[in-house]
C-alpha cells in the first residue's frame, strides 16, 4: 500500500495538514501573469519559491514557464528586499525586455513588509523602467488562502496596473477563472460564436500550450495584449467566472472604474454553461446554431450512456470554483456525489456544495486535505474519484477509477489542449468519465460478463 498509514477512523486535526489539497498564492499569481502578452512574472522572495512554482507549472504543462526572482539572501531578509528588486528590474528589462513585469510577493517579503509600490516608484524615478514598459504587482502572502486566491490577487494587480475610468465602450470583460489554456480558448470560442465583443484576461492559451516549431519564443504569441487590458475600465460590464478566482478582480474593477459585474460559476457542465451563454445573450450575444449543436451533442451522449453512471458514487477534490459546478453537473446527470474536499479555505463552500448537490447528505470540507478525503473514502467507498494527480495514490490503494482534473496534473497530457469548460468541455469530461468507468468494468468483469458492445 502506498498510503499504508491512513487509518479508517477519522480524528479531527487542528494543526497538521497531511497531503495538501491546495498550494500557495504565488503560483496562482505567476500563472495569471503568464496570461498577459509579453509579461515576465517576478517572484519577490527567496529563489526557491520561483524555482518551485516554475517547476510545478512546467510539470503540469510540459511547456517553458519563464519567471524571475529577487533571490533573497539572509541579508535581504533582515534589511528588506528593495535593493534586490531594484537590481532585478534593471536586469530584467535590459536582458529579457518584456513589456510588463508582474511582481508578486511571497511569505518572506510579506513578513518583512516590503512595500512594492514604493519600490517600483523608486525604480521609475531612477530610470530603471524604460518608456512604454510596465510593472504591475500583487500581494500574495502564502499564509492566506491558496493558489486560487493568488490568481485572484494578480487579476486585481492587472486591473490596478492597467484599467482606467473612461467613456464606456460596447465590449464586455471576461475573467475566465483559474482554468487551463484550453478552457480559456473555449471561453473565447463561445463568445466569438455568439458575436460578443469581449476582452478576456488573463489568457494563457497560446502561451502554455504552444506548438513545436523548432523555434523558441520567450514571449509566445498568446496572452492578453496590453492595449486590451487598458480597455478593461471602459467595458460595459464584467463577467466573472468563478467567484474565488475572478470575483475579487471584478469587484475591484467596479470600485475603481465603475464597471458593473455579474458573478457566474465556471461554465462546467450543462447548467453552468447555459448560465454563461444566457448571460452573454442578455448582453448582446446571439446563441449560434453552432453552440446549440454542441449542447445537443452533450445531451445526446448523456441520454445514450446514462446507465453507466447513474447512481454511481463519486468523490471530488480540487478548487472551490471547479467543485461547485462539477457537483451540480454530476448530480444533474445522476451521479451520487458523496465526498467533496478542497484545501482552499472559505466557509461558504460548504453551503454552495450542498446547494449544488441538492442535499444535506453529503460530506463536504473546506481547508482540508487528501488525507481526510482518503479517510472518508475508507468509510464510504466510491466508484469514481475526480481530482488532481495526487489522487492517484488513493485511487490505486482503494482500486477506484480516477479522472484527472484540476491542478496539478503531472502525469498525463490533454488538459493543456482540450477543455472541460463549455459544452465541448462537458463532452470531453463525460468522455473521460465514461472511459474510466468502462475501462474499469472491462478490467474487472468476470469473463462471462465481459461485454463487446457497451
Amino acid at each position: 500500500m502506498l498510503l499504508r498509514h491512513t487509518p479508517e477512523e477519522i480524528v479531527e486535526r487542528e494543526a497538521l495538514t497531511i497531503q495538501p489539497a491546495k498550494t500557495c498564492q504565488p503560483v496562482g499569481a505567476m500563472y495569471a501573469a503568464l496570461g498577459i502578452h509579453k509579461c515576465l512574472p517576478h517572484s519577490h522572495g527567496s529563489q526557491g519559491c520561483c524555482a518551485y512554482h516554475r517547476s510545478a507549472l512546467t510539470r503540469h504543462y510540459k511547456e517553458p514557464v519563464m519567471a524571475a526572482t529577487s533571490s533573497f539572501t539572509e541579508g535581504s531578509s533582515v534589511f528588506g528586499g528593495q535593493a534586490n528588486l531594484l537590481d532585478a528590474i534593471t536586469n530584467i528589462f535590459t536582458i529579457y525586455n518584456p513589456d510588463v513585469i508582474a511582481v508578486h510577493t511571497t511569505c518572506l517579503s510579506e513578513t518583512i513588509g516590503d512595500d512594492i509600490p514604493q519600490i517600483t516608484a523608486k525604480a521609475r524615478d531612477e530610470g530603471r523602467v524604460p518608456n512604454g514598459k510596465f510593472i504591475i504587482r500583487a500581494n500574495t502572502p502564502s499564509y492566506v488562502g491558496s493558489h486560487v486566491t493568488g490568481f485572484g490577487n494578480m487579476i486585481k494587480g492587472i486591473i490596478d496596473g492597467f484599467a482606467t475610468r473612461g467613456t464606456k465602450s460596447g465590449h464586455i470583460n471576461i475573467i475566465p477563472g483559474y482554468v487551463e489554456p484550453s478552457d480559456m480558448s473555449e471561453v473565447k470560442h463561445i463568445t466569438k460564436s455568439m458575436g460578443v465583443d469581449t476582452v478576456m484576461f488573463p489568457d494563457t492559451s497560446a502561451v502554455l500550450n504552444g506548438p513545436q516549431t523548432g523555434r523558441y519564443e520567450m514571449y509566445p504569441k498568446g496572452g492578453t495584449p496590453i492595449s486590451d487590458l487598458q480597455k478593461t475600465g471602459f467595458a460595459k460590464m464584467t463577467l466573472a467566472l468563478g467567484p474565488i478566482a475572478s470575483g475579487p478582480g471584478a469587484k475591484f474593477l467596479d470600485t475603481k472604474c465603475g464597471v458593473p459585474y455579474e458573478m457566474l460559476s465556471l461554465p462546467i457542465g450543462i447548467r453552468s454553461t447555459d448560465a454563461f451563454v444566457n448571460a452573454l445573450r442578455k448582453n448582446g450575444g446571439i446563441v449560434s446554431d453552432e453552440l446549440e449543436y454542441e449542447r445537443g451533442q452533450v445531451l445526446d451522449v448523456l441520454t445514450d450512456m446514462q446507465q453507466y453512471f447513474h447512481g454511481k458514487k463519486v468523490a471530488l477534490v480540487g478548487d472551490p470554483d471547479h467543485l461547485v459546478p462539477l457537483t451540480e453537473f454530476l448530480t444533474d446527470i445522476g451521479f451520487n456525489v458523496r465526498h467533496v474536499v478542497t484545501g482552499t479555505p472559505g466557509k461558504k463552500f460548504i453551503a454552495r456544495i450542498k446547494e449544488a448537490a441538492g442535499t444535506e447528505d453529503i460530506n463536504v470540507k473546506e481547508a482540508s486535505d487528501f488525507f481526510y478525503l482518503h479517510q472518508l473514502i475508507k468509510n464510504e467507498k466510491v466508484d469514481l474519484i475526480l481530482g488532481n494527480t495526487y489522487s492517484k495514490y488513493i485511487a490505486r490503494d482503494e482500486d477506484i477509477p480516477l479522472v484527472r482534473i484540476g491542478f496539478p496534473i503531472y502525469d498525463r497530457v490533454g488538459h493543456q489542449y482540450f477543455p472541460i469548460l463549455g459544452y465541448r468541455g462537458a463532452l470531453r469530461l463525460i468522455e473521460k468519465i465514461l472511459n474510466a468507468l468502462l475501462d474499469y468494468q472491462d478490467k474487472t468483469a468476470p469473463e462471462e460478463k465481459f461485454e463487446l458492445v457497451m
Partner: protein
Amino acid sequence: MAELETPEVIKQDLINKYPVKVARRRTKQIVVNEVGDQEEVPEIQSNIRTIPGIITMRGCAYAGCKGVVLGPTRDILQITHGPIGCSFYSWLTRRNQTKPTSDTAPNYMPYAMSTDMQDENIIFGGEKKLKKAIDEAIALFHPKAIGIFSTCPVGLIGDDVHAVCREMEAKYPDTNIFGFSCEGYKGVSQSAGHHIANNKVFTEVLGLSDMTKEGKFRMNMLGEYNIGGDAFELDRMLSDVGITVHSTFSGNSTYEEFASAQNVDLNVVMCHRSINYLADMMETKWGIPWFKVNFIGAESSAKSMRKIAKYFGDAELIATVEKFIEKEMVEISKVREDVKSRCNGKTAMLFVGGSRAHHYQELLAEIGIRTIAAGYEFAHRDDYEGRKVIPSIKVDADTRNIEELTVERDPVSYRARKSEEELKALSDEGIRFGDYEGMMPDMPSDTLVIDDLNHHETEVLIEKYHPDLFCAGVKEKYVVQKYGIPLKQLHSYDYQGPYAGFKGAINFYRDIDRLINTRIWKMINPPWHEEPQLTAKYGWE
C-alpha cells in the same frame, strides 16, 4: 565544428548584453577551461549570490535540506513548518524510490506534512501550532523520528523550532525529534541546505544505534538519492560481490541505518557537494576513511568497484569483483557499440546539480558524445577545481551564516580502520582519500565551464553551438526542446532510469539513442516549408 567561434569569443557573446555590474560578476563565473600537468585549472567563481532577475536555475536551502538530503528517507516523519507551498512542492516530486522491507514497515514519503501556517501564526508565532502538529503526527503515525523543516517566515518571526523539538522530545521520549533551520533565504542556493542537513543528521541521529549488518566488507554509500532506482542497482552490484551497503545517504534509507552508520569500515561519496560534510565529520569522529566514487558510466562503475575492493584488500573479493565486471561488460559492450554507431561525434552540454554535470560526461563519452560546455547549479569551487583549492576559498557572509561544526574524535568508539602504512600504500596505488579532483581537470581545454547558468546564457549557447543534446532540469527541458534540441533531465531522468551502475549505463545508452535519434525531430518542419507553393512550367516544356 571548424566554423565555430573560439570559446573566448562565445564567452564575450554570453555577457555582451549585460549591465556592467552583472557582466563584471558573470565574467568570473564563466571560464574557458585549461588543464595543466598537475590538474591545475583556472579559478571559477561559484557559490556566490544569484543575480536578482537573471532567471536562474537555482533553488533554495529548504529544497537542498528537505528535498534533497532528508526527503529520500522513508521513516523519518517530516513536517514542514511554514505556509503550505514548500511542503506541497517537495511532495514526491524528486523520484526518490523507496522499498519498505515489509507491507507494514513505515513509509511516510507519500504523505506531505505541513503546519500550513496562517496569518495569525505569522503574527502571533507558530510554535503552538507546531507543537500541536507534532502531537497529532505522533498520535497518528507513532514514528521513531520526526524532522521539522523551517521555511522562510519561520526564521523571521523567530519561532524557536529547536526548543520546540526538545520540549516535544521530552514529552515523547520514544521519538527522536529534531529541527532543521533550512529557511529558503539561507546561503545562496540548495547547497546551504545540504550543509544544514548534514550537520543535523550528524549531531542528532548518527551514532545512536549499535545495529550492525552482516558482512565482511561493510560500507556506506554517501550522496546517492535513489532517483529512478539508482541505489537499487548499486545495492545489487555490491551485494552480488559480497559487499554490504550498510546505509545509503539517503536513497532507500531508514532512520535506523542512519543511526548506526558509524558501524562500517568505509564511506564512499557519490555526490560530493551534498554530502562531503558528513563524510569528513564521520572520519574525524569515528575514523572511517572516505573516498570519491563515480557509478555513472560503465567504466567509472568498474573503476569504483575495483577501488572499493582494493580498499578492503581481500584477494578473493578482488577476484570476485573482476569476474563480476567481466560478466556485466558483455551485454554493456554490445549495447554500447550499437548505440555508439548512431551517437558518435555528437555534442552535449550539461548544466545540472553539484556532481551530475561531471559524472554524466563519462557516460556520454562512452557512446561517443563529446561535452563542449558544462557547469553546476549550486556547486562550490572544490567541485569544479578539486578539493585542493579549499584552503584558498574565500568565505563570504552568506557561507559564514551556515554553521560549521567542530568535530572531535570520539573517545570511546573512534577506531582507525587502516594503519597509517596501509593508507599510504593505498594512496600510492591511486586511491585518493578524502579527495575529489573536481570536474574541470576531467574536461578538455577550451571547453566552457559556466557556474549558475541562466536563461539568457542558455539561449546564447544554443544559438552559438547547436549542441545535439542538452542536459539540465525540468525548468529548462521544454525551452531547449522548443529549439528542436533534445534535453535529458538529469534530476528526474525524464521519469526513467536507473542510470547508475552497469544496468543503468545500458538504460542510459538506449534512452539517449532514442532521444537524439527519434525521427520525430525530423518531422518538425512540414514539407510545404521546403517546397514552393506554386510550380509552373515554361510553355515549351
